[in-house]
């Protein structure tokens, strides 16, 4: 069995100052890295002779409009080692002005659609992605709906404009 401590130490040994903010919310090792190091890190964890963290559980994005501009967007990777039953969560923070991050679809085939979904929802651009177009929403949509400034409701609906019940 792997434990968080030993994996964290090993990662720090390899990546040095590029990994920081180690946390363990509910026992799940969480760490932050830079976008330059994310793909090498995924490959490193996948090919590591001991860890074998070779299953990409999930990629998603989070929008934090109220923090510093450099950490407004976050891409979250969940990885899982079936052999050791060990999960790790890796975060990469991006600035609104520069929403670029390299694609993981070379390392994991499953990253393809998860990245398209993240692009669709948040507008994060995955460089090198084979087909980075909207997946769930219509092509004609001109904004990224999961950003927090956009409303949930359908803007075309008029029957709810009511003095009592309102929107």
């Amino acid at each position, binding site marked *: 069995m792997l434990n968080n401590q030993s994996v964290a130490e090993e990662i720090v040994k390899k990546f040095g100052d590029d990994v920081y903010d180690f946390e363990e919310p509910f026992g799940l090792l969480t760490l932050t890295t830079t976008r330059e190091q994310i793909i090498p890190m995924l490959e490193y964890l996948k090919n590591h002779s001991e860890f074998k963290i070779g299953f990409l559980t999930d990629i998603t994005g989070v929008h934090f409009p109220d923090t510093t501009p450099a950490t407004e967007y976050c891409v979250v990777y969940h990885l899982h080692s079936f052999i050791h039953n060990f999960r790790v969560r890796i975060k990469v923070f991006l600035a609104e002005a520069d929403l670029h991050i390299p694609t993981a679809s070379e390392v994991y085939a499953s990253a393809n659609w998860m990245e398209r979904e993240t692009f669709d929802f948040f507008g994060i651009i995955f460089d090198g992605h084979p087909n980075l177009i909207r997946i*769930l*929403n*219509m092509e004609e949509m001109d904004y990224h*709906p999961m950003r927090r400034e*956009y*409303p*949930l*409701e*359908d*803007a*075309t*609906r008029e029957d*709810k404009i009511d003095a009592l019940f309102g929107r």
Partner: protein
Amino acid sequence: MATDIKIVEAPEGFEGSGFFATSFDKVVGLARSHSLWPLPFATSCCGIEFMSTMASRYDLARFGSERPSFSPRQADMLLVAGTIAKKMAPVLKQVYLQMAEPRWVIAIGACASSGGVFDTYSVLQGIDRVIPVDVYVPGCPPRPEQILEGIMQVRELTHNESLRRRNGAEYQALLASYNIQ
């Protein structure tokens, strides 16, 4: 051999030895209402309840809908079961246009009727924004009994519909309001 087969009652008319006279409207309505071919347009949860309606326990076939017609051109009744997203709306309209007159539409479930709980940027707020609807079945999802009741309502409509209704100005105006020629 089953001997308790129920045969529909003849419509009102004049009867004598060797002849029976009634209005054409009534005969056509009678025939139509007992063999409505449904076109299931099932997208989500309500589609599973529609599957229950078709399957062994509720058995929609009892009401003359034995054959779900997956080709719109041979269907009489469009059953829209489930959420219609904005991306899906043109497809739904296309399917409706492919159906031949006379055609009836049932909106099954809250989503198809009004968007339901999904008052969101991606969901069409009721299919009556793109096509005319005859019967709304409430519920999220409606029980199969409710779906059957909705189909009974359509039967009632078909039974009593005048043959000239579809040529009338009112109906044409309705279609025109949906930009359907």
